[in-house]
């Protein structure tokens, strides 16, 4: 991350949730601003220019989706959505509207921190930084287009590399099926998720220690895929 202290804005109407989010973020070196409703949240987002926004969907004055759209109309600041039981459809919609990721309540702080760091890394990635994305034993060089696993070169087909590339540029974050299909295929095939499922199987054969128990290329059921930044072992 390029800045020494990252500022996170938490927009949530539940004081107890704001309290543990503040503690969790501060313990990890973040500076925290809080807002208890959408109006206040939009104000702080405009004037204090946070590096990251954590946005609850159920706000008393305005739906979180609306807040997301408004912020997106003038800023690319990373936004992570908090929600209570949302459908896959809703998650996809929020991601399409420009959310960087989502976390479903109840959740652990570690999960949210991992998503936050991934979103910040993607946002603040500068040209001077290395073009190599590392995820556990896997490293993807975005410039030379080479992929290696435990320092052994992995040979990928063009489409497999395309998939690897998109996931690597979003490392740690979820990428929707739609986005993957549109960036990898053309024509009729763009609507056929079966192609994507099969391609993922093929890629897993090459990069996972056990393709039947994937730890790197994670399925987000009904939403998309995620390249785990720090895979569990």
């Amino acid at each position, binding site marked *: 991350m390029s800045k020494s202290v990252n500022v996170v804005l938490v927009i949530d109407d539940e004081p107890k949730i704001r309290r543990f989010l503040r503690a969790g973020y501060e313990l990890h070196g973040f500076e925290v601003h809080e807002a208890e409703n959408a109006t206040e949240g939009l104000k702080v987002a405009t004037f204090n220019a946070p590096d990251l926004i954590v946005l609850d969907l159920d706000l008393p004055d305005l739906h979180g989706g609306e807040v997301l759209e408004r912020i997106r109309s003038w800023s690319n600041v990373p936004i992570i959505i908090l929600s209570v039981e949302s459908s896959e459809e809703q998650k996809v919609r929020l991601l399409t509207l420009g959310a960087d990721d989502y976390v479903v309540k109840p959740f652990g702080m570690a999960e949210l921190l991992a998503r936050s760091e991934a979103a910040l890394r993607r946002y603040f990635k500068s040209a001077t930084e290395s073009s190599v994305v590392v995820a556990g034993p896997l490293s993807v060089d975005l410039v030379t287009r080479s992929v290696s696993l435990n320092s052994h070169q992995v040979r990928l087909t063009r489409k497999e590399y395309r998939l690897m590339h998109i996931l690597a540029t979003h490392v740690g974050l979820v990428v929707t099926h739609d986005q993957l299909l549109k960036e990898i295929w053309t024509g009729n095939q763009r609507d056929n998720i079966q*192609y994507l499922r099969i391609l993922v199987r093929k890629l897993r054969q090459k990069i996972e220690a056990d393709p039947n128990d994937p730890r790197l290329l994670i399925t987000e059921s009904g939403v998309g895929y995620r390249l785990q930044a720090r895979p569990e072992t």
Partner: protein
Amino acid sequence: MFGQLANVGTAAAGNKKQVGSRFDEEPPARRSLTALVPALLKSLACVCIATALLLALDRVLPSNLFTIVYLIPVVIAATRWGTWPAVAAALAGTAAVDFFFLPPVYTFNIDDPQDAIHLLLFLFVAIVSSNLASRLRNEKEALRQRETELQYLYEFSRRLAACFTIPDLIAAIQNYLTQTLGQQAVFFVAKADEQFETPNVGAVPGEVEERVASMIANIDLPAYTIFDQSTNSIWLLRAVHSEATVYGVIAVNIGAGSAAAIQTRTGRVEAILEEASLTLQRLDIGKAMDEAKLQLQAQLLKDALHGMLSHELRSPLAAIQGSASVLGTAPAIREDERLRSLTEAITDEVQKLDGFIQNLVNAARVTANNVEPRREWADPKDIVNAAVKLRLRRLAEHRVRISFDHDVPLINVDSALIEESLGQLLDNAAKYSPSGSVISVVARAESGQVVLSVSDQGVGITRDEQNQLGRRSFRSQRHLGTIPGSGLGFWIASTFVRANDGAIEISSRGEGLGTTASITLPASSEVSNLTLANE
């Protein structure tokens, strides 16, 4: 229970065929002339065409085929337009044979007595075959009509099953009556206090409504006919009731017209009304109404659960789990095994509670018939992995073995629902088998289907229990006091699987010999052909 009406009904069913033939196969003599004349003209035209062809043929190749050829217009007329046009064709054919082909030609005289016998024989055969053919035609029409009625009936019962609220139910009944009768039909539903719900379909004369009110109040008035002077139309009223209760009154507008037309229509409507009221009883209208009410309540409950349970309960849970997770990262706690296990226990219990809430929300969803799968092609391996991963800690005391067939085909399902169902089976396996035992989860392809199965080495299941599985809240007497549970899990799982066109099967070699639960889902047939070019 339906004694009184059942009697009427049996009588109606008994002479139904008669009624049908009275109205469906009316003798053509009574049919209006406007319908008969074109048919007669058409059959005569057929005879003319046959004559022209025979005359042309006679010039090239003289033959004796005429009597056989003249049978063709007769059969055509009989199968298409009925008996009288066919008889006309037979007579015209006879005349044509005599006039054009039997010497002396171009007169109606016959020289040879053998020709005369020949001709009479032809007339006889023609009339018999016209009769046979037209009877065939009538039977075909009766069958077709029966089929249409059955189709309406099927559609009707299907719609009733899908009815959610009483207005839905009434709309379905009215729709059915209007379609089957082809007349304006209204169904007045009786309410508890001898009142009735005013249906909102078109205008109904005040007199009809008054009569409906008295029919609903008094069970001894099963049928009534009203002539409404303002619209100059006749209304038929019939009560639908069991021995004790009037469920409602069906009113049909017969319209206006000549006395004969009215009589015909009345007969037809009455026949169908008997059938309809019988149908309504067979479908157990009272029960259907109760179910509709129950469903409405379930829907309300579901909405309440959805909003209240999932939000009001989950928010505190989120605060508890979040706070515990932050505490867990503090060095003082992280480094002390005892303290760390406490924060982990908080997380585990929160997850468990969250699972219960999810179960209640799911149960409400199933009760309200609100399971609409959002299908998408999915990898069965992903579904299995997700279901197991979500329950990793609950399954920690068991040895979970996962195995997949090589190249399990993709399935077109709502993965969230299947994942939830598989999770329920995993929960059950863990609950009903000793810790340390093996739970094996398998995904395999089997004759065009994908089977996801969970096998344990637990208490097994008896034949009696097997029969009761799938009922909401069923729990075996054997485990009531020892193993906690709501009995909702399997019921939810089987509903979710059914919504995805799949089935759940439970098998066990007997008490104490373990249980295998399998979800069978239709697999993609095209996926094996779906090859990716190695670009």
